């Protein structure tokens, strides 16, 4: 990569990077505590909203629509972020090094997301008499137990991936903060890591394996989310590509969230030398691709319903596309497709820090609105009369459901709780991987190339 200003690019040493990251890691300043307090307050508000919903019980499922939409949004953004780390590591993308830990640290939010899953599962009706991927499987064994297991395993892989890849940095914290409480936690978690040749080799292989497992199991989570919390509740919903659509949208959300978090860490955390133009520019490309795919998959689903013209299909289109949830769809269409594509096709926008960040923030807002459309709508469909099977056509189209105060508290609280966990884990495990950045620096050499200097990156294997 040639340098624009013809200056000699400076490549820091591993020692410089390690001491810089450790200094930022050790710094727990007033601003950090202020943000932590604010997030804790908002999270407490979310718990109040949850208690309000709990006091209303589970008989009226529509009360849990926004809650499930929040759950789905969190699972499709925060919990999807380790995929970025796993995918880029498998692809051996060198620019990934400063941002992989950030995405892996997000796996901690899986604990909250898994706990949030339980009430949503309780709110679901039994599978008897309705279409479901579980057929007539006994219900506890199936959609409740099955979902808890699949989601739990995804969370477990994320946490294991985070822990294993953090072992060398936990050892660094152990070595440099031996007497502090954080140092003691790091000592316990580092398991006596010393960094010999064998350990590095095994770590490399283990990271690739666990990353691949995350990539293999996360789509199952999205499939169950879509099948149990949306398709199974919407009469007439028969969309073969819906799980893939959900997965693509989750990847778009994960990239958007990564961009926004990188910007925040850069702007407020002092990590500007790690989250630079290379990372923003490189991530803007998959963001553009996922934005195009957003439309492709949405259109692919829509057109089969449109031309199908069966009663179940036309009623469903009226419900979630043309009538009740028209405005959320339009907002999502703008923020997840039109906006990103129009903005990111321009080189100056794509090749900047602010451009992908603004687009990423828009994508997240659009994703939240789209998840509301996807999950509030099915949760507002009433159960059939007792003893009757679920119909194949919507009997009456429910009106669009606006959020109540409890719903707003839950949305804000859920997001705040996830960010809170992320901020807490950042003070146990450094948010930038010292060893991975250090490894990458060794592969970079500055060489004279004709009239300018170039940074040459070697392949490590």
């Amino acid at each position, binding site marked *: 990569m040639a340098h624009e200003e013809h200056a000699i690019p400076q490549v820091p*040493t*591993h*020692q410089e990077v*390690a*001491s810089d990251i450790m200094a930022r890691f050790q710094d727990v300043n007033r601003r950090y505590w202020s943000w932590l307090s604010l997030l804790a307050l908002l999270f407490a508000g979310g718990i109040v909203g949850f208690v309000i919903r709990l006091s209303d019980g589970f008989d009226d499922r529509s009360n849990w629509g926004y809650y499930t939409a929040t759950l789905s949004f969190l699972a499709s953004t925060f919990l999807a972020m380790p995929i970025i780390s796993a995918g880029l590591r498998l692809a051996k993308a060198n620019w990934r090094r400063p941002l992989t830990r950030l995405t892996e640290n997000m796996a901690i939010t899986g604990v909250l997301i898994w706990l949030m899953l339980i009430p949503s599962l309780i709110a679901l009706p039994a599978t008897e008499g309705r279409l479901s*991927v*579980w*057929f*007539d*499987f*006994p219900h506890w*064994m*199936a959609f409740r137990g*099955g979902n808890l*297991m*699949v989601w739990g*395993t995804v969370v*477990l*892989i994320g946490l*294991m991936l985070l822990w*294993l890849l953090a*072992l*060398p940095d936990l*050892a*660094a914290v152990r*070595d*440099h903060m031996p007497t502090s409480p954080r140092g003691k936690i790091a000592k316990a978690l580092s*398991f*006596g*890591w*010393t*960094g*010999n*040749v*064998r*350990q*590095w*080799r*095994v*770590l*490399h*292989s*283990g990271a690739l*394996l*666990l990353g691949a*497992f995350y990539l*293999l*199991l996360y789509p*199952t989570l999205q499939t*169950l989310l879509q099948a149990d919390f949306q398709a199974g509740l919407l009469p007439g919903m028969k969309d073969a590509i819906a799980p893939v659509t959900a997965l693509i949208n989750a990847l778009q959300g994960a990239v958007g969230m990564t961009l926004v978090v990188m910007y925040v860490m850069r702007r407020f955390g002092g990590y500007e030398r790690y989250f630079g133009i290379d990372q923003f520019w490189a991530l803007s490309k998959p963001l553009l691709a996922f934005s195009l795919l957003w439309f492709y998959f949405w259109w692919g689903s829509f057109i089969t319903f449109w031309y199908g013209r069966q009663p179940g299909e036309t009623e469903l289109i009226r419900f979630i596309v043309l009538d009740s949830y028209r405005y959320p769809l339009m907002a999502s269409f703008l923020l997840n497709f039109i906006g990103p594509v129009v903005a990111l096709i321009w080189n100056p926008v794509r090749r900047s820090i602010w451009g992908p960040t603004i687009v990423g923030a828009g994508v997240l807002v659009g994703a939240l609105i789209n998840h509301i459309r996807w999950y509030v709508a099915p949760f507002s469909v009433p159960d059939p009369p007792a003893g009757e099977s679920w119909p194949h056509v919507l009997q009456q189209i429910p009106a669009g459901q606006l959020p109540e105060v409890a719903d707003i508290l839950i949305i804000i609280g859920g997001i705040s709780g996830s960010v809170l966990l992320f901020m807490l884990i950042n003070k146990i495990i450094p948010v930038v991987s*010292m*060893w*991975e*950045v*250090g*490894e990458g620096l*060794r*592969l970079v050499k500055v060489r004279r190339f004709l009239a300018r200097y170039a940074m040459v990156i070697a392949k*490590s*294997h």
Partner: protein
Amino acid sequence: MANTQLLGLFEEPQKVADAMGELKSAGFPVEDLDIYSGSPFPEGAFGEHEAEHRLFMFPLVGALIGFAIGLLWTAGTQISYPLITGGKPILSIPPMTIIMYENTMLGAILFTVLGVLFESRLPKRDLGLYDERITEGFIGLYVDCPEERASAAESVLASNGAEEIKKA
């Protein structure tokens, strides 16, 4: 006779490679030499012994065990309580595959984590001959040799520019 362990701490990777080469030339078996570092170097960069591991067997075994448990669990429960619905077969394959797949993955994951710990020889309560500067970017060249050869190893480490040599 008891062995002696030495750890030479270097700031420059090139010096480690040179010391490693000299130790091998002096007859120290490559299996008794090891490199400690705060971040990995490309395999074989120092001419070190490339330790074999069998990590890839662990997820395979775990996946097989997980699959077997998933199959027994789903098929076993349905066969134990046979409820024929609408004349359909007792075993409902599509939902069984979800649970079996999940169990397969769970087994593979748990065994992978166990495999990483086992193959890395972790957890270790005692770090042994180690130095905190390794996680700062220093590189440790570890030598395990008979006591009578310790001074020869030490002189190789020192002549190649070790910042400090620790002994145990």
